[in-house]
């Protein structure tokens, strides 16, 4: 959805313009690194043309309605985050200048929202998932599904934020957020399916072209005396990778425990921004209490522990523990199943 002129007020448009310009400068530099110094212009240009064209490819849903790809997540996964931001921005810029699609003064809003937020969020989610999923081709597809699924509502949230700061109409933020995020969760599902299928199709033919799958190179095999033998690997790398991964895990766990347990000790007990808006506007009078409202951890405190700070901290630690256990359980289950059923036909990548 291209924002037209007059939808967001002038100061906010100017600020987002500065944000967009900064993002473009950074991604120009990053794209040179990703594509190679002098190859940048033709390759990024052709990828931008691809995004421009693929946005016109209609995916029929049912009974005459159809959707199309937005392409932010797809670009980030296929060609890398910097080139992705750059290409989607160029597409938006040209649509604004040549086709009057999206206002000239709203270019900053459009680039920040649709190029920057979508691409960066999806790439962060994608990388995060790849770090924990097994190193297989299927994982890339799964990760791109989730990345695209998250990226579209993330853009809707970003738009709602920009609207909250500089919207020219006073429709309540709650209504805008509900409408925007509700619709975009649905769009996100479609985007996720198409992105995952497309990434899967590219990986099947040219896995070397997929930026997000660079870690999955096939091992070099040599034919020695008529037999296929694995080429000797540089020995130091896997050991180093394993220790560093363990360090990352431990650091992450400790950091979240510290944040959840210790920092929430001192955190403000006031409701956060959105809850405050909801309260001020009277929206939350209608809001139903969450189904787990009377669970032992409701409202981030532990029942029967009277000290508010201690209770908050404890709840945080327990929450982190439960999340880690549940996450690991799911992860191990998935990994074991996958290891069992794919191994003979497709011995990894």
């Amino acid at each position, binding site marked *: *959805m291209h924002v*037209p*002129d*007059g*939808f967001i*007020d*002038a100061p906010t448009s100017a600020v987002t313009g500065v944000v967009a310009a900064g993002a*473009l*400068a950074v991604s*120009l530099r990053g794209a040179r690194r990703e594509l190679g*110094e*002098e*190859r*940048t*212009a*033709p*390759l990024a*240009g*052709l*990828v*931008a*043309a*691809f995004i*421009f*064209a*693929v946005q*016109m*490819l209609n*995916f*029929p*849903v*049912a009974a005459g309605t159809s959707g199309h*790809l937005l392409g932010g997540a797809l670009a980030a996964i296929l*060609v890398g985050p910097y080139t992705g931001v750059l*290409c989607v921005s*160029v*597409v938006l810029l*040209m649509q604004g*200048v*040549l*086709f*009057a699609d999206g*206002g*000239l*003064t709203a270019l900053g809003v459009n680039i920040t929202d649709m190029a920057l937020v979508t691409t960066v969020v999806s790439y962060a989610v994608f990388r995060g998932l790849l770090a924990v999923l097994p190193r297989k081709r299927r994982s890339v597809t799964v990760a791109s599904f989730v990345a695209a699924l998250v990226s579209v509502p993330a853009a809707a949230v970003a738009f709602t934020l920009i609207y909250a700061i500089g919207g*020219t*109409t006073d*429709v*309540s933020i709650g209504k805008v957020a509900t409408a925007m995020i509700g619709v975009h969760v649905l769009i996100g599902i479609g985007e996720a*399916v*198409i992105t995952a*299928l*497309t*990434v*899967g*199709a*590219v990986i*099947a*033919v040219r896995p070397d*072209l997929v930026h997000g799958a660079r870690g999955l190179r096939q091992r070099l095999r040599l034919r020695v005396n008529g037999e296929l033998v694995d080429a000797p690997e540089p020995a130091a790398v896997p050991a180093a990778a394993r220790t560093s991964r363990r360090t990352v895990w431990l650091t992450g766990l400790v950091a979240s425990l510290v944040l959840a347990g210790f920092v929430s000790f001192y955190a403000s007990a006031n409701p956060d921004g959105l809850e405050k808006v909801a309260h001020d506007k009277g929206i939350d009078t209608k809001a139903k209490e969450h189904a787990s409202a009377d669970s032992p951890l409701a409202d981030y405190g532990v029942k029967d522990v009277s000290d508010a700070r201690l209770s908050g901290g404890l709840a945080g630690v327990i929450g982190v523990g439960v999340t880690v256990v549940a996450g690991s359980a799911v992860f191990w289950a998935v990994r074991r199943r996958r290891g069992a059923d794919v191994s003979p036909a497709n011995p990894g990548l």
Partner: protein
Amino acid sequence: MGAGHAHRLYRHGTSPVHALPPHAKLAAAFLFVLVVVATPREAMWAFAVYAVLLAAAARLARVPAAFLLKRLLIEVPFVAFAVLMPFVAQGERVHVLGLSLSVNGLWGAWNVLAKGALGVAASVLLAATTELRQLLLGLERLKLPPLLVQIAGFMIRYGDVITDEMRRMRIARASRGFEARGVRHWGVLAKSAGALFIRSYERGERVHLAMVSRGYTGSMPVVAEAVASPAQWRLALALPCSALVVCLLGWIL
């Protein structure tokens, strides 16, 4: 690429507006839209004056009104949003024809419609009178990073090629009896999209090699320098300057 690199909105002509250097036109259009956005929404007459100013510019450029108005249709999704606004916005309400409408919502709807329509009209006028290559030259003159302009240039030049490639794939699918009717057929379409990506990327590699073999080292040679005389700047900036006067009057009155 045989169609002379003209984009869909361009209308060939020899008017004074067509003859203006591209960066002056770009700056004028951008400043005009900026002034329009900064105008208070209560000054309804100001928007009428803006429309008259744009109409005068369009007349000078010999762009027919029907062409401009047809292109305004791109705003339709936002018209739908604007129509909803008086019903969902808060604040005091008025009753018109038995409907309860929010005053703020009505102002908001007017604001989005008026500014959006003027913005689209200004962009259409710019695109209708400026050739693609000129537009890119103008963007470069306005100090956009040269690499960004190059990328935009490649995107536009090869956009038609890639779109054509997609069309050929569609014909190939159709001639084999494929018809996309629902979600079940997304797999085939996504494979086409994947193939399109591979073809685009490989074409990029070939284009790069072809350029390197012709002496490309990362920057394009400047063939035609766009320069604007003071008189041309005056003509181009007449539009945003008169709009600025109207805007200031709108704030004062």
